[in-house]
């Protein structure tokens, strides 16, 4: 079933970590397997980037005594490759035993850097961007928020996902959101099923894109990245996706300064919207929006084939 949520503040920053946690916790019954966040914090200027990566899956921690050493080796390899590529790490934060947050400066082609780092076995870059920080792990929103210390995370917008695993595994790799590699700052959450996943994936792989999971939601992220790479703006890419992605779906996409939602032509997957002058919130169920708005508000359902984009 899965639950998705998104919020955007116009013209101001807020504690989006706490807000998104409240929304996702309210959607826990739609998917208890994993929870994910794409949070858009303060924009890194110039050649600065923020990167989130992991060196193991949560379940790997139970696989033998030497896993700690293996993870340390993988992390050391990441550091070495960053250094080799002349990326200067200015801030290192160990988010969990197996995941890290780095701030770094880099003047070259970021895609090449990402490809080189990800070439290390069992290292996965969750996100690289100017504002995007992608956090996902097993368990409900409160657990993941506590684990990654998301309370007090200030930013303009965020999307989130509570996952009920259906067609792929219960692991971090298959958890949402998906980062639209190699586009920094583009992320997607999705509720639904794509029926032309393999056709779409084959076509995109032929065009040079990489997939990290077998989850159909990743196709949306890569598809949008590909369309934007070919000149579409976000809204154009989303409108095209309505025709080209087959199945039933509602998805939410975020970029460094925008938030968008799209619903398939059957309108089979739920989405409730709240829109005011300075704040927009959306979720699979109104109860998620209510978790941050206890007072009475007007909400509505977007219609079939609808695409909307808001700027921060």
């Amino acid at each position: 079933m899965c639950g998705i949520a998104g919020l955007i503040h116009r013209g101001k920053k807020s504690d989006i970590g706490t807000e998104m946690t409240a929304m996702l916790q309210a959607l826990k019954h739609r998917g208890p397997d994993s929870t994910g966040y794409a949070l858009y914090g303060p924009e890194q200027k110039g050649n600065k980037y923020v990167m989130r990566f992991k060196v193991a899956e949560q379940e790997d921690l139970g696989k033998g005594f030497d896993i700690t050493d293996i993870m340390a080796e993988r992390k050391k390899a990441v550091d070495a490759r960053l250094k080799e590529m002349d990326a200067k790490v200015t801030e290192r934060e160990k988010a969990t035993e197996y995941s890290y947050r780095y701030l770094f400066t880099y003047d070259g082609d970021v895609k090449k850097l990402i490809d080189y780092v990800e070439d290390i076995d069992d290292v996965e870059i969750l996100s690289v961007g100017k504002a995007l920080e992608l956090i996902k792990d097993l368990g409900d929103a409160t657990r993941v928020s506590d684990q990654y210390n998301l309370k007090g995370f200030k930013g303009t917008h965020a999307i989130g996902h509570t996952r009920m695993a259906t067609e792929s595994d219960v692991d971090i790799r298959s958890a949402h959101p998906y980062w639209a590699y190699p586009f920094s700052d583009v992320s997607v959450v999705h509720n639904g099923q794509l029926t032309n996943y393999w056709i779409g994936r084959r076509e995109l792989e032929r065009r040079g894109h990489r997939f990290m999971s077998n989850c159909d939601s990743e196709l949306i992220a890569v598809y949008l990245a590909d369309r934007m790479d070919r000149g579409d703006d976000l809204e154009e890419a989303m409108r095209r996706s309505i025709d080209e992605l087959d199945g039933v779906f509602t998805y939410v996409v975020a970029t460094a300064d925008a938030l968008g939602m799209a619903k398939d032509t059957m309108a089979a997957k739920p989405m409730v919207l709240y829109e005011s002058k300075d704040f927009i919130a959306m979720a699979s169920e109104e109860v998620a929006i209510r978790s941050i708005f206890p007072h009475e508000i007007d909400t509505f359902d977007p219609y079939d084939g609808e695409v909307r984009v808001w700027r921060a």
Partner: protein
Amino acid sequence: MAGLTTAKSTLAGMHTEKLSGRTQQRFFSPEEGENYVYPWAYSVDYDKTADFDAADMDTLAINKRIRELMNEGYGHIVVKNPGAKHSLGVGILNRLKLDFEGSLGYFGCGLIDGPNIRISGRVGWSCAENMMAGTVVIENNAGSTFGAAIRGGDLVCKGDAGARIGIDQKGGSIIVGGNAGAFCGFMMQRGRMVILGNTGKNLGDSMYDGIIYVGGTIRDLGVDAVPGEMTELDCQWLDRKLKMYGLSAPRGVKNMTKIVSGKQLWNYDNLEPVEKKIAL
């Protein structure tokens, strides 16, 4: 239905079909129906009013509290701060005046038979599904599958409604004051649907019977849904019904579009006896 004779209702296009299968068997007399009460229904007094704040209660506790109050004879119950929780006000089988001051989540007021419910906020998906009798009035918007498979009563949304409203509708009236989404009236079998605003695509797709009135524009009609002729009876009924709920057609009821079934796909009931013979 008390004031309408069969001839008048048939003239209004309510049930022009000639069905013969098991679905048409009568299991109780319509005359008895007027006095029919469920053995576990509560006897309540409309003059007794109670209210409670549901902000910190879960669905089960809220529904249980409503039952406790009905058991104590309260005929008018006000639920404050329902907080868009799911499945509130379901399964009420007696007369009751129930006010929700706020919004409901999914499956609100489903499987009811008799109460008059008012919701000051919005409702999520599948509000009042399988409703048998009574009224449910929503002051704001409604989600998709609004009034799925309702069999009777009046279901009114004064704002906009989502997709597939009145899917599998088997009776009663659904009224939407604003716009509605795609696939409204899908496989509708009986009853009336009124949409005062615009509708999405595939309106009335595969409808067996019943009538859909639309005040605005129709994006397109579904398979076997065809325009019907507005009669004086249609207009009278619409005038009366809309007035009851403080609504009006933007261009007048006479200018509304009437959609009925073309009945070209209509063969379920004819096949039923054959299927039974094969099965036996």
